[in-house]
């Protein structure tokens, strides 16, 4: 098991390198960081040249990548271009936790900006994921056990429609129904935008009520997709011989389902969920934008539209890192659930 984890870790490292190179090349060819820094003012040519030397933009792209990765505090820079090096570089590089400074928010590092927003995203994502997992399992298993019944057919059709829905449509529709129309009809209605009402302040109740609609929109689509998967996995498992053996032993239906079927059905489900979790962060861009939620998704789109490369790059790298880590965790859980993997 330990060797298995180490092997997976060693495989993850080159993967992260490939990803970082791809993202780096992609982003370096976009926008003009100097223009972004200057804001509305036009920068003088000699300042541009000086800045680009400080930032290392005059170097070939592979060197820029090296500086981004491990920093340039070991390189001397000739800032005024007079032939003698004046100073050492200041960047520490991603490997030492330096993603660079934000070009838009002067004086803040990209990591600081991300750290400010990440908790807000997690506050939204963790409850959402719990709700998604719980309901997908319940709905999927129920539907599988009542295969071909009316309820099963309703659930199957409903989940098919649900999983074909773009998340923004669900978000807009739920906002329209539960916030706009409920207020019109004099019913208790839900807030639509932001994390809390500024007049009340950031209380637990405020944040909780503001979370309902975003979580509902995200969960509906995911639950639809996952419950279909759980249903088909359960159907596959309960048709297996060992389930018949379990019944032949005289176990009750509940014991067979929970003790025998669920563990087998959970193995592929864990894999799917483990791969998907970090992608929720990507999906958060849309949910957070619609609901004005001050999370990482909003940060991403705001800074992308202003070409703030270090922040965008940082977020992309963090998500990719999350993907790789989640895959690793998935593999470990997988090995723990499935003895056939563990002992090979």
């Amino acid at each position, binding site marked *: 098991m330990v060797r298995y984890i180490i092997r997976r870790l060693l495989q993850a490292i080159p*993967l992260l390198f490939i*990803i970082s190179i791809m993202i780096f090349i992609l982003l370096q060819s976009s926008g003009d960081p100097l223009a972004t820094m200057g804001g509305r003012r036009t920068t003088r040519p000699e300042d541009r040249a000086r800045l680009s030397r400080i930032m290392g933009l005059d170097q070939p792209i592979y060197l820029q990548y090296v500086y981004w990765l491990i920093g340039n505090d070991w390189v001397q820079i000739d800032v005024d271009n007079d032939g003698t090096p004046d100073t050492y570089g200041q960047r520490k590089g991603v490997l030492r936790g330096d993603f660079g400074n934000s070009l838009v928010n002067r004086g803040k590092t990209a990591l600081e900006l991300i750290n400010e927003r990440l908790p807000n995203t997690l506050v939204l994502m963790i409850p959402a994921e719990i709700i998604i997992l719980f309901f997908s399992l319940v709905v999927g298993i129920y539907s599988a056990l009542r295969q071909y019944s009316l309820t099963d057919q309703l659930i199957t*059709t409903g989940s098919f429609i649900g999983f074909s829905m*773009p998340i923004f449509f669900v978000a807009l529709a739920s*906002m329209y129904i539960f916030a706009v129309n409920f207020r019109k009809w004099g019913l208790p209605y839900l807030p639509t935008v932001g994390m809390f009402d500024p007049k009340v302040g950031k209380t637990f109740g405020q944040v909780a009520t503001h979370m309902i609609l975003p979580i509902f929109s995200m969960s509906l689509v995911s639950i639809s997709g996952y419950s279909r998967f759980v249903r088909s996995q359960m159907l596959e498992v309960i048709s297996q011989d060992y389930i018949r053996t379990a019944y032949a032993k005289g176990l009750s239906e509940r014991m067979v389902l929970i003790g025998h079927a669920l563990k087998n059905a959970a193995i592929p489900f864990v894999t799917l969920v483990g791969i998907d979790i970090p*992608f929720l962060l990507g999906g958060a861009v849309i949910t957070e934008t619609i609901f004005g939620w001050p999370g990482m998704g909003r940060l991403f789109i705001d800074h992308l*539209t202003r070409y703030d490369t270090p922040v*965008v790059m940082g977020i*992309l790298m963090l998500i990719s890192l999350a*993907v790789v880590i989640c895959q690793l965790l998935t593999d470990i859980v997988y090995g723990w659930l499935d003895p056939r993997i563990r002992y090979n």
Partner: protein
Amino acid sequence: METNVTKTNIPAISEVEKPPLLLSQLVFLRFKRHKMAVAGVFILILMICYAIGGTFFKTEAFSLVTDTSIRLNAPSSVHLFGTDAVGRDILARTIYGGQISLLIGLIAMILEVIVGVLIGAIAGYYGGILDSILMRFTEAMLNIPQIPLLLVLGKMLSDKISPISLFGRQFSGSVIVIIAVIGLTSWMGLARIVRANFLSLREQEFVTAARCTGTKNRSIIFEHILPNTMAPIIVSATLAVANAIISEAYVSFLGVGVMPPTATWGNMLNGAYNYIESAPWLWIFPGSLIVLTVLSINFIGDGLRDALDPRALTQAE
């Protein structure tokens, strides 16, 4: 025991059997049994008629007219679907936007299939180092979340290409960018399926036979193996159209996709959430069109998957 004793009353077995059906007939029969898939075909045809037939009632120029004096007007007899934030007619824009959205779905799918099949086929057929390089690349692409990647690429490139004319219409160059970006970021799943099928098929005897007769690799890949792995490709391609339409809607919705004035169902929704209270028609019409289209394509894909399932095809009908 001899078999030729008293066979008088024995019915010939062949009488009971019906003549075998062609594969395509069988697939069609099975598809027809899938009611939702048939409904999907019907809805999709309606959508296409809407986007194409609508041009006879509203001109494209009309869909582009801005008039702030009638901005955010509710649906009325003049503007059946209302007007948007700069006073454009939403009905006309859903017609011309529909053309673009469907076009993006279709062409991005073709691009995705070409890239996915090529990479999967080459990796699966040649194997070895080529396979591991291509698969590492595929894996890396899969590990970058698609929506942020689409947004980055869309933002970087959407204003880089000048407008183009096609079918007598003027498109924003960003349409081409979005098609390319969607096509080039969604081929990985298909490539993996194709590779897996090639890996198993290349070991089979008909491939060995083709090799022995000196058939060129290219011909083996495209004429011998590829036709045997069409079923999953057809299903993936169908679903890819729906995914491309949704992806376009996502990026355009966030304002980094297809640039106005060219309308798509997606970019008509851009900023609609700011008027959620005052002008719900801004999102209800284009949003519903997207949902209907995507849903119908997904149903068709589901029906095709069942109809083309090789396990089901081997059974007698």
